[in-house]
């Protein structure tokens, strides 16, 4: 069983100490406490985001409306038709989508950082962003008229582009002779530069697409609907499940490829599986929300600073707090200038970076 390869066991063998001593891992009671607190954070963020928006909905009515949909609860609809439509068809899907995208990006960020043992790795490291950007630009510039399609060409092209980006980076990295992370990262840099160059060229050729491409790059949840949620839910679910299942192996990888090998872990294979899962999820997130920057870096690092560096705890916390963070960022994006919108990428960077700096300063722990 995989569990056996825990660093905890390693320390036990070497130093004869009690098992729960993996680096940075808190005692079980505290871990449960942190998880419960993160769950509460997510619920509070979601509730706040449902209650507050550019249109004032009566909080009592919203709560009644939501409660009415629960099984076995009949309190009658709390809102008139228009307000109910705003709540169910505009606000709620946006909150849910924000949560899914935030969870996915934070999780993928943590996974990439673990796999590459590089604190600056983010979900876009292997060309997912550049590939998606090129795909989206091509769809915007040359996309067919697809008003009758259930899914527009943009998410499909962005998704395909992200996959193509990561696969070519991976193939290039392997062809470069390396099973090490350094060659992979370099391959990612090369693929990113190349795809970005192509994207810039297309943009220059088709200048009328500039604003739409730019808006997409800054990220958006503006036009989110349930169809977007349905579109990415399977990918996010599968990819999260894979990463969560590999959280202990990420801890093993943290000690280095050779050491992991001596523990019976095939580092290259774990890396492939985790990178594939994280990239698939990132591609799905990027397809519906554009490039929302910094979430994949800020959230995992903040969690490490607060809760230690063990992936057993970081991974589930990323899932919960990543969702909460992006839900709140989107809340700011749609209310701070209401009824106008701010691009969410601006919010995540503007609030995320200083917040991260504060956490970094006030914490004595290093990531």
């Amino acid at each position: 069983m995989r569990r056996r390869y825990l660093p905890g066991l390693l320390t036990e063998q070497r130093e004869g100490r009690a098992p729960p001593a993996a680096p940075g891992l808190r005692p079980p009671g505290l871990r449960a406490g942190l998880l419960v607190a993160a769950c509460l954070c997510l619920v509070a963020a979601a509730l706040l985001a449902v209650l507050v928006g550019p249109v004032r909905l009566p909080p009592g009515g919203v709560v009644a409306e939501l409660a009415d949909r629960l099984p076995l609860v009949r309190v009658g609809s709390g809102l008139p038709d228009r307000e109910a439509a705003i709540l169910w068809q505009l606000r709620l899907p946006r909150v849910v989508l924000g949560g899914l995208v935030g969870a996915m990006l934070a999780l993928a960020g943590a996974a990439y950082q673990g796999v590459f043992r590089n604190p600056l790795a983010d979900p876009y490291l292997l060309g997912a962003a550049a590939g998606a950007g090129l795909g989206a630009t091509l769809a915007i510039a040359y996309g067919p008229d697809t008003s009758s399609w259930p899914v527009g060409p943009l998410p499909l092209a962005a998704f395909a582009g992200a996959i193509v980006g990561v696969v070519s980076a991976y193939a290039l990295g392997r062809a470069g002779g390396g099973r090490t992370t350094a060659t992979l990262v370099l391959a990612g840099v090369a693929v990113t530069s190349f795809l970005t160059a192509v994207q810039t060229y297309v943009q220059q050729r088709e200048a009328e697409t500039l604003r739409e491409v730019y808006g997409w790059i800054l990220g958006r949840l503006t036009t989110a609907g349930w169809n977007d949620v349905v579109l990415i839910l399977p990918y996010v679910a599968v990819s999260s499940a894979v990463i969560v299942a590999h959280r202990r192996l990420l801890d093993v990888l943290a000690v280095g490829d050779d050491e992991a090998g001596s523990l019976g872990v095939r580092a290259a294979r774990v890396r492939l599986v985790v990178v594939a899962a994280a990239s698939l999820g990132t591609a799905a997130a990027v397809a519906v929300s554009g490039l929302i920057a910094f979430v994949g870096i800020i959230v995992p690092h903040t969690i490490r600073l607060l809760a230690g560096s063990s992936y057993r705890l970081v991974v589930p916390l990323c899932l919960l707090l990543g969702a909460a963070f992006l839900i709140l960022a989107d809340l700011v994006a749609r209310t701070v200038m209401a009824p106008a919108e701010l691009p969410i990428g601006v919010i995540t960077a503007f609030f995320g970076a200083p917040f991260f700096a504060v956490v970094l300063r006030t914490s004595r722990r290093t990531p």
Partner: protein
Amino acid sequence: MRRILVPLLLLVALVGAGCGRSSPERDTTTQAGQAGFPVTLDGPGGKVEISQRPGRIVSLSPTATEMLFAIKAGAQVVAADSFSNYPKDAPKTDLSGHEPNVEAVAGYNPDLVVYSNDPGDLGPALRKLGVPALLLPAGKRLDDTYTQLQQLGQATGHTTEAQALVASMRADIQQIVAASKLERPLTYYHELDKNLFTATSQTFIGQLYAQLGLQNIADKADKDGSGYPQLSAEYVVKADPDLVFLADTKCCAQSATTVAARPGWRQVRAVRDGAVVELDDDVASRWGPRVVDFLRTVAARLDALVAVRS
């Protein structure tokens, strides 16, 4: 700037419009045009001196191209930028109006370059080459259209035609506005793209709507005064506009059908009343002579809507 000559010029314009772009007429305008040169124009891009009637004009702005053809200077245009898709016989080329390349422009050996935005140093660079370059930036109000038409008239030797066109536009617009008096103001939302970027009543297009007595739902959203805010879908549904104007039918394939299919938009009055108006993106984004067509389209839809409601 209303002239006493309006009725006379209107007549000239109508006759001119009737003649179209027949080639003998070009010759007569050529003869008439030589008189006004050299001419010095004082524009937003600085003083522009044109020594003789230009015969090799490069237009880097679709609006300027439309204006040049409308004042019958079309025959003097040798190249127009890649977006100059109107009129059909405009000499559209690969030239970019967004990122103008001085060498590519100079390659056409122009004796006048007209452009609407200058991200680099196009104007000064052309002047160094001895090519007069006339900057005609995006119009902020209808008077800018008239001013630019008259400047182009002077610059190309078509002063009379330009004045006639301005007069006829003024008269047409006055007529359209007078004929469409709304009993109560209707609200509208003007969509620039499907991410709900819009234009407020402070913009060029917004002022045209305002002339017809329409109220813009986006004004509250424009706190920074850019004129082009991005709205929340929630807000548009709540604001419940009487009319939705789509200026993203070509760029983004939006239509009354796609709008009705958006989540929550079935609640919007304009969608229920069939008052989602599919505009031509180009006509709705240029400040050229076709603003008259634009106003006519909008006024017709207003009449239809009022008739349906009463």
